[in-house]
């Protein structure tokens, strides 16, 4: 069986790197291969998601929903249909806006188990059973 691959990226400088590290570790412990990208632009996220053939993209949000929306636009423009989850500081009004675009949101206080469970759901169809 092959592990699902998740790209974790920071969308702004104010988001804490610590938060993304905690989520990354939880995903690793849940059996995911987590590719850390650091602080990157929308174009870069699209490039890495494609080159690394990831099954899921995790965005760490630093309060500004517009940045995330620009990333979603860039992914769409590049034909990347990989599911997206978002965590970090996401304002209330933004959660609804993002969920409407199929982004699963995990504002501060979300349980790590819930994040991992959602990641499993979103990548489930990619898990190919290699046993005959």
């Amino acid at each position, binding site marked *: 069986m*092959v592990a699902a691959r998740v790209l974790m990226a920071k969308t702004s400088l104010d988001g804490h790197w610590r938060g993304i590290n905690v989520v990354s570790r939880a995903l690793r412990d849940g059996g995911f291969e*987590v590719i850390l990208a650091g602080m990157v632009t929308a174009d870069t996220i699209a*490039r890495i998601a494609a080159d690394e053939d990831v099954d899921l993209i995790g965005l760490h949000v630093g309060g500004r929903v517009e940045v995330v929306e620009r990333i979603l636009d860039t992914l769409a423009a590049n034909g990347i249909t990989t599911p997206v989850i978002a965590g970090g500081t996401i304002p209330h009004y933004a959660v609804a806006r993002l969920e409407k675009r199929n982004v699963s949101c995990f504002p501060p206080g979300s349980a790590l188990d819930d994040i991992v469970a959602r990641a499993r759901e979103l990548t489930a169809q990619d898990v190919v059973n290699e046993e005959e």
Partner: protein
Amino acid sequence: MGERESADALLRSAIGGDRRALARLLSVVEAGGAPFRVIAPQIFAAGRGTHTVGLTGAPGAGKSTLTDALVTEVRRHGSRVAVVAVDPSSPLSGGAILGDRVRLRQQNVVDDDVYVRSMASRGQLGGLSLAVPEVIRTLDAAGWPVVLIETVGVGQSEVAITENADTTVVVLNPGWGDEVQANKAGLLEIADVLVVNKADRPGVQATVRDLERMLHLGKVQPWAPAVLTTIATDGTGVDRLWQVITDHQRFLAETGEREHRRAQRRIAEVRERVLHELTDVSSRVERSHAGALIIGALAKGEIDPVTASDRLIRLAAGRMADAR
């Protein structure tokens, strides 16, 4: 990825230069399953003979930073370059954190002539030592003439990876001599080039002297490993490092050593593959109904171990005959 493109079509597109197809194809190759096996001969046949450079050393030695600096240097010379960055998996969950990309500068990430792929050391069928050579072959088939491979040089299997490279660069730091005594011999044996990175730190000259002394103790070889110093964070010494790597490449080509080494590596690779696949069949047979009966009889003392293994082997042989 939802739609199941055929591995064959992916390979054709990847050979034609389609980057997205290459990315998907590498996932198929890494998984090592039936779709990969079908196209393995075509991948091999499409190989153009890429030059592979392995960078290995302790965690934190600066391998990723140096890889990024080397990518920049290779690009300065105009060649396209791919990177395979391997990080260890968690033995408990099988998951992994692949953090080498954090050291890549933006300019290299978005460069169309740079391709970077992160891999975990476990999780592939056959383990890393089987997956890495096939990933390299695939990059070769897709027209990447230089492949840099970063691995952590601590465990046995990781050191074995560097045997996949034409040129092995061992990355050390000042003061290293005192720290990793035990690994010294092993690392020096595999090194074609020794790099003392973090040369902005104290103790560089002493470390270089130490290494040179140890190298001179060894037997005289046609290629004498060079000891270089770099500061990966600002690029100091990286031009010289690339120069020495290309010198080594020329040495391998001119002496016929390259083909010899590659042939030896293929033989070693196949030995490992055969062992792995036999082990795999064996454990499947044990878990099968007929196998469980034999193991049960063995546990109760109804049959002896030699008879039990003979029967298991006969079952395995039958299964393999059916599968082929």
